[in-house]
C-alpha cells in the first residue's frame, strides 16, 4: 500500500479538521427550516452519471 507521507500527528490533525468542518456544515443545516435542507436529489445524466 502507498504511504501517505504524513506522520501520525499530521494525520490526526487532518482528521480533526475534517470532523470540525463536517460538524460546522451540519450545524448550518440544522439551523435551516426543514424544507431548506433538501438540495440533495441527484439527477441522472446519461446512463451512469448523476449531478446535484
Amino acid at each position, binding site marked *: 500500500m502507498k504511504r501517505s507521507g504524513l506522520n501520525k500527528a499530521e494525520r490526526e490533525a487532518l482528521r480533526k479538521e475534517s470532523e470540525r468542518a463536517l460538524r460546522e456544515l451540519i450545524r448550518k443545516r440544522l439551523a435551516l427550516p426543514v424544507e431548506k435542507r433538501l438540495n*440533495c436529489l441527484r439527477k441522472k445524466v446519461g446512463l451512469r452519471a448523476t449531478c446535484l
Partner: protein
Amino acid sequence: MDAQPVLAVLARALEEARLEAILIGNMAAALHGAPVSTVDVDFFFRKTRGNLKKLKEVAGTLRASILRPYYPASGLFRLQRDEDALQVDFMSAIDGVGSFERVRSRAKRLAMGGHELLVADLEDIIASKKAAGRSKDKAVLDILRVTLDETKRAQQSRTRGTPEGK
C-alpha cells in the same frame, strides 16, 4: 437539485391515496440535517392487497410505472417516471429496523408543501444503513452518526437555553 417540490408532490399523492408510508434512506437523513445526497426517494410501507392498490393510485398520480426489480429481501416496488427519471422505491422489509409499526411509532410527521409526510427517526435510518452494509451505506454512516450527535447537542442546548454549537 432541490427535492422539496418532489417531496411535496409525493406527500400529496400519498395523502390522496391514503397510503401510509414512511420516508427513510438518504432523503430522510437530509431532512434530519445530514449533508448527503441521493438519486431516489425511499419509503417503508406495509405490503397488503389494499396498499398495493393504493400504490397503483400513487403511480397514476405521478404518471410513473411500477417496476419489480429482483431484490427478494426488501420486497421492493419501484415507481419510475420516464420524463424526468424520478425514482421512488417502496420497500416492505428493511433490515435492522424491526417492524413497520415500530418505525412508525418513532417517526416524525413533517409538513411538506401543505401535506404531511412521515419521516423515519435518524437512529432507524442509521440502523438500516448499518444492516444493509453496502459500501455506499458504509460511506455515509459516519456522517449520519455525527448528524445524530449534533442533533442531540442542539436539543440539549435548547433545553438548557445555551447557544448551539458551544
